[in-house]
């Protein structure tokens, strides 16, 4: 199973970050052609991302390109650069309806055919940034078999909701987080929590990471490399959890050898969901 704890934003026209971001080893790198790039630099950023995607250093890391929204004049050119460059996932911002994803998919397939990439190879993810997007989250998450993830984007959403970020348990984001996460889980795809904008506030960042982790998000979108290690450590299981996971898998293996359907460990049944959780814990521990 592909781990998607950390998705690092890299401005598409920032040469230094394009040249170094792979060394920080996030689970996914997202080259941004949208908000991080001024309108007059979109053409140059598109070429920078197209070339960077082909750099050998990015072969072993999942790459994502955030294109401009379908209401912009830029998105189809962004898509050409991303797909022809070999991107793994296209991230659509400001997704409002399933139709946005279906329109995107039509053009993705057209470009795949034109450049000779296997049809269906390019995956999609949607960023939800409005009340409409949250309300339509289930139909968005299930709009295409190419969908692999859905992300909550907090800033625009809170403007749309006539509110602002608070501290603590962040009640203003609770419904949207829960709705987006349920949509993702129903569609069997991954879910990313919002970015935390204050890169100097580790305590606030970790508080928010713990909210996202406890709710069940796979991870967060990140705007600074220093947040990667903090996030990965927060998502890592404890030694006790790792030890328990190993015992669960040993018990399951023994049950399999003996031809038993289920087995119990410490008085609790070891069934497929418990085994899956144990496998996830070991995968997270190994990646931490």
């Amino acid at each position: 199973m592909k781990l998607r704890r950390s998705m690092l934003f890299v401005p598409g026209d920032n040469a230094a970050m394009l040249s170094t971001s792979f060394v920080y080893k996030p689970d996914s790198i997202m080259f941004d052609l949208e908000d991080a790039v001024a309108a007059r630099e979109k053409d140059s950023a598109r070429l920078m991302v197209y070339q960077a995607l082909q750099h050998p250093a990015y072969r072993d890391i999942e790459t994502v390109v955030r294109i401009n929204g379908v209401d912009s004049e830029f998105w189809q050119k962004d898509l050409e650069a991303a797909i022809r460059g070999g991107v793994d996932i296209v991230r659509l911002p400001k997704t409002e309806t399933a139709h946005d994803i279906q329109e995107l998919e039509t053009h993705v397939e057209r470009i795949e055919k034109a450049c000779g990439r296997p049809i269906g190879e390019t995956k999609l993810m949607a960023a939800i940034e409005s009340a409409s997007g949250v309300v339509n989250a289930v139909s968005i998450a299930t709009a295409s078999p190419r969908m692999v993830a859905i992300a909550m984007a907090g800033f625009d959403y809170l403007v749309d909701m006539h509110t602002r970020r608070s501290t603590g348990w962040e009640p203003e984001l609770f419904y949207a987080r829960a709705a987006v996460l349920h949509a993702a889980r129903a569609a069997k795809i991954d879910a990313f929590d919002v970015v935390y904008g204050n890169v100097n506030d580790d305590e606030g960042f970790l508080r928010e990471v713990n909210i996202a982790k406890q709710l069940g998000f796979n991870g967060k979108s990140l705007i600074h490399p220093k947040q990667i290690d903090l996030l990965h450590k927060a998502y890592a299981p404890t030694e006790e959890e790792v030890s328990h996971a190993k015992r669960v898998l040993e018990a399951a293996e023994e049950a399999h050898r003996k031809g038993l359907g289920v087995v119990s460990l410490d008085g609790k049944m070891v069934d497929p969901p418990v085994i899956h959780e144990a496998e996830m814990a070991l995968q997270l521990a190994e990646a931490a």
Partner: protein
Amino acid sequence: MKVVKEAISGTLESSDLLVKVEPSGKGTRDIVIRSEVMKQFGKQIRRVVIDTLDKLSVSDGLIVIEDKGALDCVIRARVQAAVLRGCGSQELDWGRLS
């Protein structure tokens, strides 16, 4: 492609480069490269610039590069952006850009 107007792309920040293109006025392609790493990588930078210009069929124009230690992929992208701007080109032939 023919450079018909002055254009620039890139920045003078570390790991980047600034590319200026303009019509040569004499039907030739002239390339000027200045780099902080000229001794170590000057030949490689020139090779990437020439290859990029050849693929775009740029045979006429003055191309001035101010390099700040950019990777090859950044050099390619910035040269392509400057040339496409200098040619006033709206349509991209992706086969020429890889």
